[in-house]
């Protein structure tokens, strides 16, 4: 009996052991334990300020989100390319011109890449630039008032993705086409003629040093591939800009497969100082192109839209020394220049390596003519001649790289959902942390400056799933804050973001905080319809237009009773906020107006249009809680039928003016 038991038991035991051993060999996951003092590192006590401003693009929201770091608190959304009914941006008469384009008024766009203005390669906190991807435009925001003050459209451009990227002294803001298209001058061709007719354009917008005013200086006519992202050279590579290009296969359909065939696509290196010289020498050709230039004047609080008619184009095929292609694996996406300007890394999102090119080697290759033929007339530098080294087995789907101040690089890997830290010179991988989930871009404060603020890295993710309380199928995008001050990265905070931050820039709060405007001086207000005192408030009829010159101050409007308006009139409420104190805005809305409200800041004038659709009494009121008697801040408008003779009457209290 014993033998039989023994054999059976042995047999069963062997089987169970085999099962146990095989199933316990599970590959280890990279887990990030939250460091013990994470909470204290991100807690900003009530009444205290954050260390940094984070400017994150809104992506498909078309706006810019401003957060404080390290708390991750959302401070503001600046409306840029999308209407904002909350404060009347794109609805008020003064701001409507901001959203004008050569196609007419467009209420929305897709904003991707914020870039802070810089001086001597360091963020200076004066302006923030951002691109519109759909109807190509570049916008500039004033960081003293946090308002969008200028938008310029880019002609001959589509899918304005590699945009805007700024040179080290904000000489130029550069934008490029992701979708190559036939130039505006001769547009109607069959799609299959992509290789012959579709071209790329790289736009150099000059920025005035003092005022920040933009002006489309010139465009480079380049081969029709997809220009994805770019960064300007700095330090030793100042004067050059670098772009990643994919779809060197020049496919026009089913790019998922057709643009992923070639083993290597390109990095485009542009010597923009040389291009400037050619323009000065008159080598540029002026071609017709329609695009708008919209400017918001901050003294008159009024935007104007100007239609431009021509653009200067340099054909790089005919002008040697401007453009060089460098082969790069495979369908590259992000490109980054290290703080010294010597190393340029491009991430091939379908490759497993990140090539690091050396600027001095590129210069030598050009001097020695170490070329591998050309692509559409532009010399292609030999890969090995330009390459400093490759970062191997970095992760799956490497996308973007930023730098700290210790010679390290941080690359985001989308498919393996992680940030990988590596040394720029040795190419050794030093650390990895998971992100939750599927990281796209990442941001090191001043990470593209000559002296980065190397304390944090922020992961901007694409997939949220279970990170926060669920809110139905449509979820916010998640972001994580990591401490990179030590050897290993530490996860500190996980916070939701608005829209979809494709990229973000961050800088210490001091400069911006100091210059932030508290209110506008009423005496400096040059708006055409300003009303500087209550005595000057009036209602004036000009044909079928009625202009209401209105003031508001705690807690009443002048006038607040208006008669003599008729159905179908174009009524313009020019509302001036007479307050001269901090954080006392007033709102304005009229019943039944198919328009938004106004939010008028102290010292500001804004105009809201109304076309009454029916006779009767229409109330209006202040929509932003301004004072103890905010509820009393209201008024009435009497609308008479078409053709009636009701005289214009207006006033507040017992006084009636005519």
């Amino acid at each position, binding site marked *: 009996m014993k*033998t*039989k038991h023994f*054999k*059976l038991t042995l*047999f*069963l035991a062997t*089987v169970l052991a085999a099962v146990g051993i*095989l*199933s316990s*060999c*599970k*590959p280890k*996951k990279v887990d990030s334990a939250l460091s013990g003092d994470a909470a204290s590192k991100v807690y900003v006590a009530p009444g205290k300020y954050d260390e940094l401003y984070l400017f994150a693009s809104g992506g498909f929201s078309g706006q810019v989100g401003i957060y404080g770091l390290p708390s991750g608190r959302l401070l503001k959304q600046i409306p840029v390319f999308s209407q904002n009914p909350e404060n009347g941006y794109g609805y008020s008469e003064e701001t409507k011109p901001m959203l004008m384009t050569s196609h007419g008024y467009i209420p929305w766009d897709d904003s991707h890449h914020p870039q802070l203005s810089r001086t001597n390669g360091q963020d200076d906190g004066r302006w923030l630039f951002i691109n519109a991807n759909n109807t190509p435009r570049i916008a500039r925001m004033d960081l003293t008032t946090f308002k969008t003050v200028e938008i310029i459209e880019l002609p001959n451009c589509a899918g304005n993705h590699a945009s805007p990227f700024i040179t080290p002294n904000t000489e130029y803001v550069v934008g490029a086409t992701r979708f190559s298209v036939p130039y505006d001058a001769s547009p109607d061709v069959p799609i299959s003629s992509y290789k012959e007719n579709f071209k790329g354009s790289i736009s150099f917008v000059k920025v005035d040093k003092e005022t920040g005013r933009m002006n489309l200086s010139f465009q480079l006519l380049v081969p029709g591939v997809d220009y994805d992202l770019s960064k300007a050279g700095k330090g030793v590579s100042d004067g050059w800009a670098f772009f990643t290009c994919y779809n060197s296969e020049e496919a026009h359909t089913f790019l*998922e*497969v057709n643009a*992923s*065939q070639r083993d290597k696509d390109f990095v485009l290196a542009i010597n923009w100082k040389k291009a400037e010289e050619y323009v000065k020498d008159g080598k540029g050709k002026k071609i017709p192109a329609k695009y708008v230039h919209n400017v918001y004047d901050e003294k008159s609080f009024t935007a104007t839209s100007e239609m431009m008619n021509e653009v200067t184009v340099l054909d790089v095929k005919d002008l040697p020394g401007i453009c060089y292609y460098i082969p790069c694996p495979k369908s590259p996406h992000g490109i980054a220049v290290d703080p010294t300007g010597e190393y340029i890394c491009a991430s091939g999102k*379908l490759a*497993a390596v990140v090539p690091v090119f050396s600027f001095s080697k590129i210069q030598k290759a050009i001097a020695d003519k170490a070329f591998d033929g050309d692509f559409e007339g532009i010399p292609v530098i030999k890969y090995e001649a330009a390459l400093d080294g490759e970062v191997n087995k970095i992760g*799956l789907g490497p996308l973007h790289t930023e730098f700290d101040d210790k010679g390290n690089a941080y690359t985001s890997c989308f*498919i*393996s*959902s*992680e940030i990988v830290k590596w040394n720029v010179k040795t190419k050794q991988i030093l650390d990895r942390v*998971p*992100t*939750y*989930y*599927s990281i796209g871009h990442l941001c090191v404060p001043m990470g593209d400056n000559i002296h980065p603020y190397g304390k944090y890295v922020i992961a901007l993710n694409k*997939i949220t*799933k*279970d990170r926060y309380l669920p809110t139905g199928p449509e979820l916010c995008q998640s972001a994580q804050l990591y401490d990179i001050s030590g050897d290993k990265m530490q996860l500190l905070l996980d916070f939701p973001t608005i829209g979809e931050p494709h990229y973000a820039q961050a800088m210490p709060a001091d400069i911006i905080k100091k210059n932030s405007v508290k209110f506008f001086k009423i005496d400096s207000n040059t708006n055409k319809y300003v009303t500087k005192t209550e005595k000057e408030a009036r209602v004036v009829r000009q044909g079928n237009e009625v202009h209401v010159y209105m003031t508001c101050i705690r807690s009443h409007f002048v006038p607040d009773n208006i008669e003599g308006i008729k159905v179908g009139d174009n009524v313009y409420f020019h509302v001036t906020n007479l307050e001269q104190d901090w954080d006392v805005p007033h709102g304005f809305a009229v019943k039944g107006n198919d328009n938004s409200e106004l939010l008028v800041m102290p010292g500001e004038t804004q105009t809201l249009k109304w076309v009454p659709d029916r006779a009767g009494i229409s109330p209006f009121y202040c929509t932003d809680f301004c004072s103890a008697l905010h509820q009393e801040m209201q008024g009435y408008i009497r609308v008479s039928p078409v053709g009636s003779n009701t005289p214009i009457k207006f006033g507040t209290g017992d006084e009636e003016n005519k």
Partner: protein
Amino acid sequence: MKTLKIYSRIIVGVCATAMVFSLFVSVWQIQLEAPQYPEGLKMEIWSHKIAGDIDKINGLNHYIGMAQIKEQNFPEFKVMPWLIIAMVVLGLLTAASGKRFMLWINASYLVFCGIWGVWDFWRWEYHYGHNLNPHAAIIIPGMAYDPPLFGWKQMLNFTAGSFPDIGGWLIIGPSIVIVGVLIFEQVRKHKNKEQKTQQRETQLHHAKQSNAAA
């Protein structure tokens, strides 16, 4: 010794009955884990169909050029239910008849099914992992994506695990027991033979002694 012990027959009968339920549940599972899939993905292989997150898996796999998993491409699903029914019938017949040779047939059939199952699964996995679309977007030279036969395996950003599911255990468990019963019965038979041989020898010995004494 042609007849089996009563408790052997009961055990075989119970095992055979248990196997029936494997027709109504998932037999094998492939689990997929990835950083961006905190909820995990699962593919269930039943005796007559495929279930689980097949659509999601097919959606992901096309980036690396893997073929779509479609139920109609598996002739196994027409055959497997009958193979399992045969296991059940054989088991019940063995229990009813109580014949040793039936137990031999039963156990051999189970082992044969096990070997065939493993081989067929490995063959499909190899084909699935190696037969890649040359025009796929992501091509990593030298990489193949055969899912593991048993246990865990890392493939790019996915950790894949291949294990029996409930139905699988309902077949494997009883099969091991039935083979165990056969071993037990064989040992018992040999023991019995030895005892009988010893008894005869002892009898002969005694007989010789008696003869000698007489």
